[in-house]
């Protein structure tokens, strides 16, 4: 379905909604077109090429907002969406009001971030890149036995939204991503590791640094052993720190705070982290692949600090939570799919870097653990209290240098304590795609953390 048909359909839906008896209404049409190839054993083992389109509707009646969705686009679909959304309004008794919004000065919002390179994303091109990459990964070392997973994919898709207050939004963007996971074996010990690349132009993919990082991520794990349980100074690799931060980002949402699910509630303006730590949300960050000029409610986004030199500045709000708190939306009201309600999400996040590069950080730390992977973040954490106990991998730092890999260890601590124990950030910022956008994060040093290892003895207390 093209953009004009989509606009016409959702306009009809919204105008019928008002006739149907809704006080206010909004409809959005989302498309997701994607292509992916997978490489296995020097062949394109699978190819996917698809389009999914759906419409999400929300209508307000007597202060309650009911929702419905469908992938059908005919008159019976309109009837279905209106009648079920009305039924949903009738059973809701939410104390907090949700809003249909339009800022008269910004009633027509467009964000078109198409690269112009999308037509290069052909089956032939992706196959060529993928097959070469698989071959070159296998050539890295005789220890590498297989590339168990290799995908080259791209996605694009316009989304258009209209409401009964006169808002019109349109956005479209595209991206390409490459992911590979290699398996190596040495003396019967198996190790795996993966790496990714993402961008907007397949010709900009530089295989050399990709291979070098993947090589380190897989082959660097051999020869590891555990460490004695105890407290260690820790350098978090950027990706590992981002995975931890992302796990607890929900605590920065005003929704979590208002529902008593965030320990940051009521702490705006207070010190919650070490004074060297600054975390900013930059929706329009220059280096970001995708920029977010406005949110799904039609509110303009803005650059802001979440944590400024240790001080928790402000939570993330959408229109509903802002109204409850007596403040303004921060432009963080996003919906994930046509079928989802408006939630709260951060866009692009930036951890302010320090001055030391990675080697200088190791030298400065002298003895400790360099953590590269935290596993089981969806299970081994208490998202409310901040407690976590996670299986992790990394390296032992001895006399200011990486000494050997470590494995079969767990790191146990509390997220809020970790924020306070940050003593340095590196100058080695990388971009890590996570959540809605990207994190721009360097290595992060924490003064001490509880590491439990396997000393080989049956534990008594």
């Amino acid at each position: 379905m093209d953009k004009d048909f989509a606009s016409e359909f959702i306009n009809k839906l919204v105008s019928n909604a008002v006739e149907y008896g809704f006080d206010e209404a909004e409809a959005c049409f989302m498309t997701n077109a994607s292509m992916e190839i997978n490489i296995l054993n020097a062949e394109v083992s699978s190819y996917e090429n698809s389009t999914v389109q759906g419409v999400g509707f929300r209508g307000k009646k007597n202060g309650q907002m009911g929702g419905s969705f469908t992938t059908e686009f005919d008159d019976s679909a309109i009837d279905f969406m209106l009648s079920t959304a009305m039924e949903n309004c009738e059973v809701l008794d939410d104390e907090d009001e949700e809003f249909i919004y339009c800022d008269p000065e910004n009633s027509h919002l467009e964000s078109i971030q198409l690269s112009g390179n999308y037509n290069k994303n052909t089956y032939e091109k992706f196959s060529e890149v993928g097959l070469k990459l698989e071959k070159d990964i296998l050539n890295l070392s005789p220890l590498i036995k297989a590339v168990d997973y290799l995908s080259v994919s791209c996605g694009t898709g316009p989304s258009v939204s209209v409401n009964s207050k006169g808002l019109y939004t349109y956005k479209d963007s595209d991206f390409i991503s490459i992911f590979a996971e290699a398996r190596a074996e040495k003396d019967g010990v198996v190790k795996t590791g993966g790496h990714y690349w993402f961008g907007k132009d397949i010709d900009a993919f530089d295989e050399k640094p990709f291979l070098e990082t993947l090589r380190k991520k897989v082959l660097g794990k051999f020869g590891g052993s555990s460490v004695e349980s105890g407290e260690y100074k820790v350098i978090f690799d950027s990706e590992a720190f981002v995975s931890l931060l992302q796990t607890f980002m929900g605590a920065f949402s005003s929704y979590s705070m208002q529902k008593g699910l965030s320990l940051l509630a009521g702490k705006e303006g207070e010190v919650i982290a070490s004074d060297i730590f600054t975390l900013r949300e930059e929706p329009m960050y220059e280096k970001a692949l995708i920029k977010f000029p406005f949110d799904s409610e039609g509110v303009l986004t803005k650059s802001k600090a979440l944590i400024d030199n240790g001080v928790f500045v402000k939570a993330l709000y959408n229109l509903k939570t802002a109204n409850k708190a007596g403040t303004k939306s921060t432009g963080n009201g996003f919906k994930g799919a046509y079928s989802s309600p408006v939630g709260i999400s951060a866009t692009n996040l930036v951890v302010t870097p320090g001055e030391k590069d990675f080697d200088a950080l190791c030298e400065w730390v002298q003895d400790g653990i360099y953590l590269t992977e935290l596993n089981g973040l969806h299970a081994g954490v208490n998202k409310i209290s901040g407690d976590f106990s996670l299986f992790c991998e990394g390296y032992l730092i001895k006399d200011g240098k990486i000494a050997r890999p470590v494995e079969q260890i767990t790191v146990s601590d509390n997220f809020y304590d970790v924020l306070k124990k940050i003593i340095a950030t590196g100058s080695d910022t990388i971009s890590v795609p996570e959540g809605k956008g990207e994190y721009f994060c360097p290595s992060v040093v924490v003064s001490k953390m509880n590491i439990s290892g396997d000393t080989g003895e049956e534990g008594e207390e």
Partner: protein
Amino acid sequence: MISETSASRIIEAAMSGNADFAEIFEEQKKSSSVGLLNGRTIRASSGIDYGVGIRLMAGTNVVYVYSCDKSEEALIKLAKEAASALKGGKSSDIKNIEALSKSSPSVLNIDPLSVSKKTNIEFLKEASDYALSYDELITQVAASYATSNRIIHILNSEGFNKEESQTRIRFSIETVATKGNEKQTGRIAPGTMRGYEYVNEYPVIDKTRECCETAIRMINAGYAPSGKMPVVIGNGFGGVIFHEACGHALESTAVGIKASCFTDKLGQQIASSVVSARDNARIEGEWGSYYTDDTGRESSDLLLIENGICKNYLVDDLGARRMGCKPTGCGRRQDFTYAPTSRMSNTYICNGTDNPADIIADTEYGLYCTKMGGGSVDTATGEFNFASEEAFMIRNGKIAEPVRGATLIGKGQEILMNIDRVGNDLELAAGMCGSVSGGVPVTVGQPTIRVSSILVGGREA
């Protein structure tokens, strides 16, 4: 539904190139859900999703395309595009489409979609009100209910013409206990393929009380110790460890490309001799069941491990081509946007002979995990980690103080060999399993078991 004549034309278009197999997967899903927070209904949604996936194979190469557009013209165009992207293979005969055969593992006295949202809300409200008045430490109760009817229709070049209707209900009640800055949760989330009579018969007050007790017990608990120790894992959801650490590694997705730690182990001992395990998709009314898989094949009751010996792998049609064996009817996918892969259904460790009380009594010192949370595993190395949601210390053969924050860490192969006691109290529990073909409903299960030694990651050294 796509007519047989349309399907023939689409399959013909799909087989016009190199494909030796073509399949149409048509899916319609109606869903309805409500969510309560502290007794107030804050979310109500309804929807219909429809889509078609077309899968082509040539040897072990796969092309998968999908769309929401059900017109014959659009699907023929899609099938032709898919055919032109498929490499290798040689064309094959197309068999005549058989007469439609229908199946359903759901047992419905009362169709859940015929029950009003008001009734669903009353059920959840009873639980919420009870929990909120249970104890002043319980500060929050979240409750949700969701039901769906999924009709899948599979037609392929081998003449298959199968339809299956799957109606499912899942609800959850989560209680939060607060003490100062600390919060702990208790949770139940049963799922079924029975009708609304399941909800009517559910002992909701007793189960909500258990949730409250868990949350309060955990908020008052100290941290678990760390180190290697014997661990007794309670029945029901404790089976998640077997699911993650063993089940995934027996899927042809991993075994078929030799990326599993259990590759080439048929007939060999992979677990201690007290362990037998099954994957049974044919339990009527059970949450993880299906009679016809998402590739149109009849599902099975598969013996995975018998007295420690590996008996069968979970093999889908692509896996069968890779491994040169027969598929076991385990091809599953979240929805039409995913190509199918080998997946589990109702997977459990079979009953043993021990009385659970004796297992505890015979354990001098160790950890007793009564409620497990989620976890993750690397199927190549077998490394896994799991969080416990409720645990107790075992001292001198008796259940002692509750402890929180325990993570179990290890390798699947080692844990299976270290199971030394298996109880006679098998229970199944509903869950969602995420993998390459998306999230599918599964049950996990086991009787009470003891593992002679697991590394426990806790916060107390």
